[in-house]
């Protein structure tokens, strides 16, 4: 065990070949999802082949960044080492308007105000070398 109070950094995504364009776009504050030109399926996370039809004709579309919280959990204790400094933090499954689900964090709000099916919108945050797509409560119109 180390004597240092220094906490390890958040783990960075282990970037795959097919995921690389997503991370590059996130750096430019764009949320990309894959789209299958053969069967019209929207796909997240990025796949090597379309999981519906197995064709390779996959391109990228920019998602609206809007969705709802399918479910969430607020981490208060016993986080993994890389997240001890971030507590409390909120893990959520977000359902995007485009019909795909992604895991992310909910930020910029009091965790006690979060609820299932709450509308959220994407916000980009730098964590180490990466820009992560996170979500905050959608602005009221």
């Amino acid at each position, binding site marked *: 065990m180390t004597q240092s109070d220094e906490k390890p950094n958040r*783990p960075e*995504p282990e970037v795959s070949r097919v995921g690389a364009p997503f991370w590059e776009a996130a750096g430019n504050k764009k949320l990309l999802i894959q789209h299958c030109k053969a069967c019209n399926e929207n796909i997240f*996370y990025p796949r090597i082949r379309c999981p519906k039809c197995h064709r390779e004709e996959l391109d990228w579309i920019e998602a609206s960044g809007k969705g709802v919280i399918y479910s*969430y959990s607020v981490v208060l204790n016993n986080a993994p080492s890389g997240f001890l400094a971030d507590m409390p933090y909120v*893990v959520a499954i977000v359902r995007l308007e485009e019909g795909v689900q992604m895991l992310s964090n909910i930020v910029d709000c009091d965790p006690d105000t979060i609820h299932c099916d709450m509308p959220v919108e994407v916000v980009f945050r730098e964590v180490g070398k990466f820009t992560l797509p996170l979500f905050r409560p959608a602005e009221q119109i």
Partner: protein
Amino acid sequence: MSRLKGNIAVVGIGEVPTGRYPERDCMDGCVTSAVQAIADAGIDKNEIDCVVPCGTVFSGAYNSDLVTSRVVEELGLSRVHNNVQVFSGGASSASMLKVAGSLVQSGMARHVLCVHSEKLGTGLSGQAGIDLFALAGIHREWEVPFGQHYSTIAGLVTTRYKYETGTTDEQITAVQVSNRKWAELNPNAMFRKPLTVEEVMKSKMLATPIRAKHSNMLADGAAAFIVTSAERAKDLTETPVYVLGSGGRVTHHSLSQEADITRFGYAEAAADAFEEAGLSPKDIDIAEIYDSYPIFEIIALEEMGFVERGKGGAFFLEGRTWPGGELPTTTNGGMSSQGHTGGGGGFAILVEAVRQLMGKAEKRQVPDARFAAVTATGGTYVDAQVEILGNEIS
């Protein structure tokens, strides 16, 4: 549908106490439980012609030993044709039973030793255990960077389930109390002191709504069972336990990719298992349900048809799953009370089902039990596995 019904039997079991045993080497548990199972089956050790070791997660080096036949060497087994690891995380027991049963049914093997040993309690430091389970089976590109770990996985599932069904934290917590009632009667369980809903609700919040005492505790443990044909079983024991039906559904790898995190695949898996067995939930005397967190016991009982959706929590709270209740459930105390031994959670509950059906469960014996339903699931609850076992052929 499988063709195993009534053709395959478990004829011997072994288990060492689950808990923190720093002086007990992982191979100690493996050998001790295997020797118990061989003796319980009443076979000569050299009648074992296939060894199926479950995977272990505390040490890659130890797992390499298992893959490369160390169990065969340690036990001095002279007629083993194959040592073949079968590993599906917490669902390994179901996979091992299916593989072992199929090898016997095809004539490839006659007596198969299935064995599991794990040292998650004392083989790792506390934070190393947390960190291991922030990576094991969690997507390193799309989930790990957001702080997903098993407390949040249980938190996500429980939060959505509560939202859809109106189930309360008290009702969910009742699963822990029910499991503990059984563990009080189980000498191999790690936690045997009575537990109350209030005590759980006062424990530290980890990841909402999951508190410390909703969580399982990583533990050392080991167990083994012997699989043979139903025909051979008649020569060996008066209490063979037959495989009557099996079902399974793999739904996802990453929890965020699952479309309905309040149900998973239990309804379909159970339907297959019950159809093969020719039985229905009302015929079942014992439900041996994989927990790891309380919500998974509720979801499995509901989806399998034992209790209506949204009523599972109340079912536990009313004591209907307790010793003496109408549906004795998870009678070893589950991973919440017996302890979490990695791939061994499902293994322990399968061994417990066999023990009950053999009439060897001592203080917690369910009287006149004939049929048990057993579940298992691996990783981030990636699959739903259901086995129907019986001490008679349905």
